[in-house]
């Protein structure tokens, strides 16, 4: 196993290099490059001053030297400064990351709590009314654009429906918590939960559709295998046959899918965060794009690509760990 992991990890290095070269190339393409900040702000710098700045930043060196200097810093976690806020990119990211992990974590738990029972039930009761309903719902969930769903939720639960006790909107329109109020204890928890409901619904709706459909297919494949019949023949209860024998095996590809989705925890759901003003990574990226902060944009793309490569590796490892039938090469 160790050898396999090492070999796969080494195999990822060319991919990482490729990603970094593309990202650097895009940075070079971006208008103005690193000195555009000075020019845009109209600091009244002369052409000579500008040349001086360029020289001091090493912008006259050959491209490959600039690239390796940049890569050397990136490897140490130094992504430079965000142009618009003049703060280190890593600080900007670390500020936003907890909010994204929080939103995604809750959405993920909700998804699993709903998708797993639905997936199992609709496979066990294949072609029943329940199964047909689930299939129809998954088609809807997979087809509705998440940003449209977000707008509908906003329209219904923030604009149209009122809270019968206070007369205010039923649910808040966005943000992590009510700003300008210091709540404690139970009130704080309530406030937080209310703010979570809409973005989590928007995210989970799509995910539940994908995961439950996937699990249903996977369960249907397992349920007809011989060892399930054996389980029933030796008198196990249906509950144990389904949950312990069938589901455990059907869940193996599910775990792989989860591992592949891990980068989402980091990138956040851009649409949910933008629509519900959630101060996370997705919204950070969106704002950076609006402000044309290419340094910040590229740092996030770079980190996300790394995470995707890592997630692929984890998914393969998990698959092989969980399913001994797959031989390590």
């Amino acid at each position, binding site marked *: 196993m160790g050898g396999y992991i090492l070999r796969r990890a080494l195999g990822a290095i060319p991919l990482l290099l490729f990603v970094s070269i593309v990202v650097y190339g895009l940075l070079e393409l971006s208008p103005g490059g690193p000195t555009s900040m000075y020019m845009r702000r109209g600091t009244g710098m002369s052409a000579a001053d500008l040349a001086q700045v360029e020289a001091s930043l090493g912008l006259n060196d050959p491209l490959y030297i600039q690239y390796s200097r940049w890569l050397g810093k990136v490897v140490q976690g130094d992504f430079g400064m965000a142009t618009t806020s003049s703060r280190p990119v890593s600080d900007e990211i670390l500020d936003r990351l907890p909010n994204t992990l929080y939103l995604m974590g809750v959405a993920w738990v909700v998804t699993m709590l709903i998708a797993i029972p639905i997936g199992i039930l609709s496979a066990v009761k294949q072609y029943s009314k329940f199964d047909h309903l689930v299939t129809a719902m998954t088609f809807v969930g997979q087809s509705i654009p998440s*940003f449209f769903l977000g707008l509908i939720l906003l329209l219904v639960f923030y604009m149209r429906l009122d809270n019968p006790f206070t007369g205010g909107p039923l649910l808040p329109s966005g943000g992590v918590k009510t700003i300008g109020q210091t709540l404690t204890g139970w009130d704080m928890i309530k406030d937080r939960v209310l703010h979570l409901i809409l973005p989590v619904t928007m995210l989970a709706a799509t995910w539940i559709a994908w995961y439950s459909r996937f699990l249903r297919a996977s369960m249907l494949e397992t349920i007809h295998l011989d060892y399930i019949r054996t389980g029933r023949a030796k008198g196990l209860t249906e509950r144990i046959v389904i949950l312990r024998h069938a589901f455990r095996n059907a869940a193996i590809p599910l775990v792989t899918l989860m591992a592949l989705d891990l980068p989402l925890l980091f990138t956040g759901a851009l649409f949910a965060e933008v629509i519900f003003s959630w101060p996370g990574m997705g919204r950070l990226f969106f704002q950076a794009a609006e402000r044309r902060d290419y340094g910040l944009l590229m740092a996030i793309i770079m980190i996300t690509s790394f995470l995707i490569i890592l997630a692929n590796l984890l998914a393969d490892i998990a698959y092989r760990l969980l399913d001994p039938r797959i031989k390590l090469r």
Partner: protein
Amino acid sequence: MRDATEAAALEPGSGLGDDARNPGPAKQSDTHSMARVYTRRFFRHRLAAAGLVVLVLVTLSAILAPYMTQDPNALSASERKAAPSLAHWFGTDEAGRDILARTLHGGRISIAVGLIATGISLLIGTLVGAVAGYFGGLVDAALMRLTDAFLCFPQLFVLIVFGTLIRTTELRVLQGNMIPIAIIIGLLSWMGLARIVRATFLALREQDYVEAARSVGAGNGRIMLRHVLPGAVGPIVVQATLLIAVTIITESGLSYLGFGVQPPTSSWGNLLEGAKPFLQTLPVYAIAPGMMIFLTVMSINFVGDGLRDALDPHSRH
């Protein structure tokens, strides 16, 4: 492919299918009867048939939009944010433009982006997958690493960066034009197709009939095009159909964020963006383009599912 044949043969109620799919002496009527079998299987999937109907209607409304509606860019100072009426079925937007007209014209752009992007993906994906699967070895390894490399970029993020570049550089002249967006989406969406085509080519190239073709002196290009590709058409068609839905959603999302097709050219996505400030007062402004995306995507998904049942029964769940 032998698997697929067996699956088709085992499948209940498709007695006709066995005959058409079993490798055997070619009959004159094969193509004809196979087409009939596929059509029958497709229409047995009722949702797929319904999806096809909706899809035809949506496409017709997009094609005929210029003849059916008023000018989508005609401003009217006296009729701003008008409620739905006989003159303006869906009302008017903040500049007095007819929302129905803008929605239907938006469909022209969104559907065109979906088709162009899918076409580009289809071309690249089939080419990469076919060459990788057919030649195998080093070529395969290199092309599949390239595919992996494309897969490790977060697609939406990269598209947003391209959108930013288009908005802020000399490329600005292109921003009302959907072609560059469609091309970029296409360039970033071919990987799934490439993998599927490769897998099919890997399986098919070992078949006896390929060997037979080679033994009578057919070149690689001819074998790939005339002998192997037809066997891969099923999965390719299914995948490409579903890809149209994905690319339409991608374009809409990108335009919704403001990095796709730029106003005043309307697309379903940028209409939704324009509608957001008026969600409270004029919900139909957002609901019209949103429902169009939803209906179109869902119909395409149904049609894709039906095509999978008809053309690619092996992969059915």
